[in-house]
């Protein structure tokens, strides 16, 4: 049963194996996993199954060492160097904060753009698509550090702001996905792009819980798109649907302060006070019915009740009234073992929430309606 482990990959072999795999699948989002030492790949380098890549850390490291060498030698050639470009992939995969590699990619795209003169189907558009796809791979694979990288998330924002969105909005544009271009409705393409980005953000948020920079990207992206308001008379952001999606995600991840922070932010950018109130109502209702004692849930509730998100008068007072009434009903009965273990139970959370809102609540509705 016990066979000698296959020799670990040399830097050259590891680099070649990874590069070949990435090249073969450059139009597809991959799922890259780090194999634990108990499951070495039979060939000593990696395991490939469709779009899944299992790689022991040693292979990644070996490929990185080779990539780093190739990158520093070839970066002197300038942004047109394909060798340097290919080397950035293993570099960023293992070391996502490698700013210099990320900056090289920006320079390369600018260089290709300046040569393309807005013609469709050039190497510029091709690179844009494959590059975004590889970025998506890193940000959505089960890689704990990589999925939260501020460098990679800002790089994505830069890509979207300066290259992807402008290209979607051009006539005869090439959309960054495989669906056929729809030149008569760039607005719909923006909508679709936004939805797919939200999926990337949420998946990344699941790979790395409380993912600050994934949701920071979300805020930046929405700010960018909301500034457009409508493209071609298509309202590109269907806030109700986005709210519904995020509220549901937060309910499934009640300890995720980043998810709830983004949900609060979305509410601040939602024009209709009824839409806002409905979301808060549902969160409170769910939290009480399930007995959620997560700090993040109640941070959300106390903040939006106190800062005027649900408006003064009926909206805010009603929800607060629900909380007060719930407390009165419980009347100090103990539920579950949490309190005995010294954890804060749901009654205490609700009590603290009511108290916090009482202390810090503003009386005027916030001016979120006019954006």
């Amino acid at each position, binding site marked *: 049963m016990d066979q000698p482990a296959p020799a670990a990959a040399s830097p050259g072999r590891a680099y070649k194996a990874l590069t070949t795999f990435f090249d073969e699948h450059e139009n597809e989002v991959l799922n890259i996993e780090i194999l634990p030492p108990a499951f070495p790949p039979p060939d000593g380098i990696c395991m490939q199954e469709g779009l899944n890549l299992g790689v022991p850390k040693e292979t990644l490291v070996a490929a990185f060492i080779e990539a780093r060498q190739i990158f520093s030698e070839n970066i002197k050639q300038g942004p047109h160097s394909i060798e340097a470009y290919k080397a950035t992939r293993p570099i960023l995969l293992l070391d996502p*904060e490698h*700013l210099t590699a990320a*900056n090289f990619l920006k320079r390369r795209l600018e260089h290709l753009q300046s040569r393309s003169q807005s013609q469709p189907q050039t190497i510029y558009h091709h690179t844009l698509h494959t590059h975004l796809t590889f970025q998506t791979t890193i940000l959505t694979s089960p890689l704990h550090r990589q999925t939260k990288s501020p460098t990679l998330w800002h790089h994505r924002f830069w890509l979207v702001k300066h290259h992807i969105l402008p290209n979607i909005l051009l006539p005869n544009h090439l959309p960054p996905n495989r669906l056929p271009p729809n030149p008569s409705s760039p607005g719909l393409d923006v909508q679709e792009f936004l939805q797919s980005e939200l999926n990337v953000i949420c998946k990344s948020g699941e790979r790395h819980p*409380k993912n600050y920079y994934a949701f920071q990207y979300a805020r930046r992206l929405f700010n960018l798109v909301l500034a457009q308001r409508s493209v071609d008379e298509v309202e590109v952001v269907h806030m109700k649907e986005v709210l519904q999606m995020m509220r549901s995600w937060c309910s499934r991840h009640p300890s995720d302060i980043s998810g709830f*922070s983004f949900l609060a932010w979305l509410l601040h950018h939602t024009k209709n006070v009824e839409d806002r109130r409905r979301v808060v109502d549902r969160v409170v209702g769910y939290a009480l019915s399930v007995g959620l004692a997560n*700090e993040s849930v109640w941070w959300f509730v106390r903040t939006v009740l106190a800062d005027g998100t649900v408006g003064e008068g009926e909206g805010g007072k009603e929800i607060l009234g629900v909380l007060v009434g719930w407390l009165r009903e419980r009347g100090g009965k103990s539920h579950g073992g949490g309190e005995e273990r010294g954890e804060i139970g749901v009654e205490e959370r609700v009590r603290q929430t009511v108290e916090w809102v009482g202390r810090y609540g503003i009386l005027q509705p916030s001016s979120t309606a006019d954006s």
Partner: protein
Amino acid sequence: MALVSGPGRGMTAMPAEMQLYVDKHVRYIQSLDTRKDELEYWLTEHLRLNGLYWGLTALHLLGHPDVLPRAEVLDFVFSCLHESGGFGAAPGHDAHMLYTVSGVQILATLDAFDDLEARMKGGRQKIGQFIANLQDRETGTFAGDEWGEQDTRFLYGALNALSLMGLLDLVDVDKAVQHVHSCANFDGAYGTSPGAESHSGQVFTCVGALTIAGRLDLVDQEKLGAWLSERQLKNGGLNGRPEKKEDVCYSWWVMSSLAMLNKLHWIDGEKLTSFILQCQDPELGGLADRPGDMVDVFHTVFGIAGLSLLKYPGLAEVDPV
């Protein structure tokens, strides 16, 4: 964020009286640059200059300021300096605010601005100008480099570095202050940009920036103090955001913020001290993010800085800003 780490160790029962293993930590930091055969060394090349600043600062706090050879340290620092006046993380790496701030901080710590002038005529001014050019004159915030990422970390870094060099007049401090104020959230804390999620690290950068500018009057000190005091967990450690795990580096980000607000007593100092001491590797030196994990120089410096704020005996006094 692992940076030239030591080996992991299991948790064994801790004695009631805990001490700070000063000599072990000093030796740990000294050994960092000698580990070039370890791959962690190359994986962390992208923040080498930061690492040098963290190690140097820790040594100063521990009362061993001269352990790293000054000439070698300066040689490395200058090898990271670009013609533009910005510093990169290591030779051959792009210039960025983060590394520029560390570069300036090291030069200030070593009192080496004359050495700078000898290497680069008008160096101080050039560095100041590199930083100043990164300010967005409309919003007052700062980018990290030409590619435009804006974050209050860079704003704080800019004000810190410029004030160390006596060049604050190169930037619009009032606009920067206004921007920081616009990053205040309803929960009392601050984020990376207006409306961004509250985070202890960003609280430090925002409160630090306001302190440098003399505008702490803009802070809702009671609300922020309350949010910061909610960071302490039952084990005495501090976290950065609700429901995050404790991490020794927050001993600095949270405590220095409280120190600037004169509210250090809003945290249980004894429990925190005990937590920080448990993060040490008593055999090989260094501190980890939490007890039992691998150590690194980032967590070493911020754990020790936290102890200094808590007035742990034998440590040099740290300035919360």
